[in-house]
């Protein structure tokens, strides 16, 4: 009987587990430009982060600092008017080096999430 029940559960799970469902709810980082952990040869003029949910711009922000901890963004973080899942911030001219991005966002379901990642700028032609 016990086995029968577990087979029934498994059969049920089978049908559901076959279909993958994209993760939902609460805003998480989907992807970023420059990408998290990436090395780019052209200094980006702007940082854009795509989240998995619509954001509340009034309570969301992002900061970019260089290896010495100096702010290198223009402090104008804003959500995209057309697509409120995107947060963007303008950057100062970036010399080659490592940069750290720290973000904290609140999605429209009131939940706050935060995180950080790094990216590097490499001089063109350098190994």
């Amino acid at each position, binding site marked *: 009987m016990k086995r029968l029940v*577990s*087979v029934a*559960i*498994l*059969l*049920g*799970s*089978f049908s*559901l*587990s*076959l279909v*993958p*469902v*994209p*993760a*939902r*709810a*609460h*805003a*998480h*980082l*989907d*992807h970023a*430009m*420059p*990408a998290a*952990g*990436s*090395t*780019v*040869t*052209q200094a*980006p003029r702007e940082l854009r982060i795509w989240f*998995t*949910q*619509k954001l*509340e*711009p*009034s*309570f969301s922000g992002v900061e970019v600092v260089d290896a010495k901890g100096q702010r290198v963004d223009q402090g104008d973080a804003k959500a995209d008017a057309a697509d409120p*899942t995107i947060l963007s911030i303008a950057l100062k001219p970036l010399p080659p080096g490592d940069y750290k991005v720290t973000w*904290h966002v*609140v*999605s*429209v*379901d*009131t*939940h*706050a*999430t*935060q*995180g*950080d990642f790094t990216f590097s700028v490499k001089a063109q032609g350098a190994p």
Partner: protein
Amino acid sequence: MDTALIAARALHFAAQISLAGCFAFVVLVARPVFDEAGGVVSNVLRRRLAIIAWASLILALLSSLPWLFLVARDMSGQPIYSLLSNGVLTTLLTKTRFGHGFLLRLALIVALVPFAATIGKHASRDRLAAILAALLLGATAWEGHAGAEEGIEGTIHLAADATHFIAAGFWLGALLPLAALLVETSQDTGRRGALIARSTAARFSMLGVLCVATLIITGAVNSWFLVGTIAGLVGTTYGQLLLVKLALFAVMLGLAAINRFVLLPRLATSDHGRKAVESRHAAASIARHAVLEACLGLAIIALVAALGTQFPAAHEQPWWPFRYRLGLDAVIADATLRKDAIGTAIIGGLGLLLLVYGWYRRRVIAIVTGMVLFLGLGWRPIQLLLLDATPTSYYASSEPYSVASILAGRAIYAANCIACHGESGQGDGPASASLAIAPADLTAHLFVHTEGDLFWFIGNGMDDGVMPPFRDVLAESQRWSLINFLKAHAARFEVDTIGAEVTEAPAPRAPDFSFTDSDGAATTLATALTQRAVLLVIGEAPSSPRLAQLEEWRSVLAESGVVLVISNDPDLQAVYESFDRRRARDGRPIEFLIDHDGNIRALARPGDTPDWSDLAVLTREIDTMARLKIARRSQAAHVHTIN
């Protein structure tokens, strides 16, 4: 868990539900019942309903304040005492969706105040109030998980959630009013009391069935969006809370079924003798059950309030509690097993049909043959689908399948795994000979296991410690990177050698990487693939004639749906070159055709045939690729980790 926030939410939800239930009960049950009995809604009932409605209104208003303050605290990260002076509340109320929804709900609650005073007096006013209360419940869905999604799916989820709230209010909230009316009738020994009790119970039963059906359907939709899989249901906190909720709901349904099928028929219309006494007792029992159901409902509301503050299961790694899982993986990976499964399923199925046929036609031979076939072979396809599971079978990788991750994994492999599993990955490392159990061949049937299984094997070891656990040696992200490397490594052995001609044969997935596009903007392969297929060119010297030629073809290629990606990144070359399995990794230029779904369909070095330096040949291969029927890329991708 934030108890204060959960308590505030639970009280607010309960108040709203009770409020909506009062008006729904008057409109859909009490008034029609009293109309039928030839009178107006009784004074006793009206007084009791007014008390419930007033209490609900006051509770709704009182509980909304702590909710507002706690949400403001969580969204802004500011302490509660500073919220009155620092403008956060103003920003919250005027600039955010929660704030707008809050003001709307507040307005609806205030608008319902005059209706509470006159509940049961005027049919039209009660109807209007029921609609307002339903709007109040629907608006509450707007602030939850459902309201935050994009597109048509978001709309479906929101509609399902709002309907779920309204159905909950009309059923759960009406339970106390039902008890109030039935208690009143059970004290009435006259014929009219019995009539009213019976009619009330019958009408409420209709309302209940409708609401419960709605709750089940909309609840299933919501769970689909927020939990997604059975692994999410049994293996995450969110899923387990949901299971408790479902269990409580099942008990409520049990009580409702007793009311409907046992007690309702006992409500007699006779006004004398034993039947009348029994009938009054039944009415009192239904009332008691209704109060009990309302208490269970309150517990469910508390769970709902808690669930709303949790990360939904779709975001948590599910812990699989069973030894087995059902999956097509083994059957898909192995053609022999596939034939085995399909063949035995067909014969076993025919056996079952024969058995049923023989049973009805009383043909002994058919019964015996059918039973032999069904019992002899029917278990086989199920056995083939029953796979060994690990607790982390359904864990999803936190590391995207990228060049950087594969290279990190390769370094980890060289440092930790190579001694036993060998450079080739086939289990022939220098230390392998001394082991009691031979190391696994990592190039064969790796894909029968889920990524989560591999994660478990690496973390916890295998074969009673012959393979040691690496839990304390490798961080989780390192284990996932190692798995990415193993996937890339095994893919080369699992697929037939890829050549310059596009074929339908299984193809390895193209690892993601970032690059600078022709406009000088930083982008990734995954982003490029959302637009079109990719021709990836690696290792050409900046001034080579081939590059000049390709640049000239760029617009022609774009017309046939292919974007040109050029890279000289040595990391990229190291990883991609390995997909050219038959030839040395020598850093010579190499080109890849990657289809829209991210599979490497063809590769060519200069001088290969067919010759890609002929535009006609190249576009022919691209056209072939565009026509392939390609299995949809798995979207299971990675779970977003919570930082």
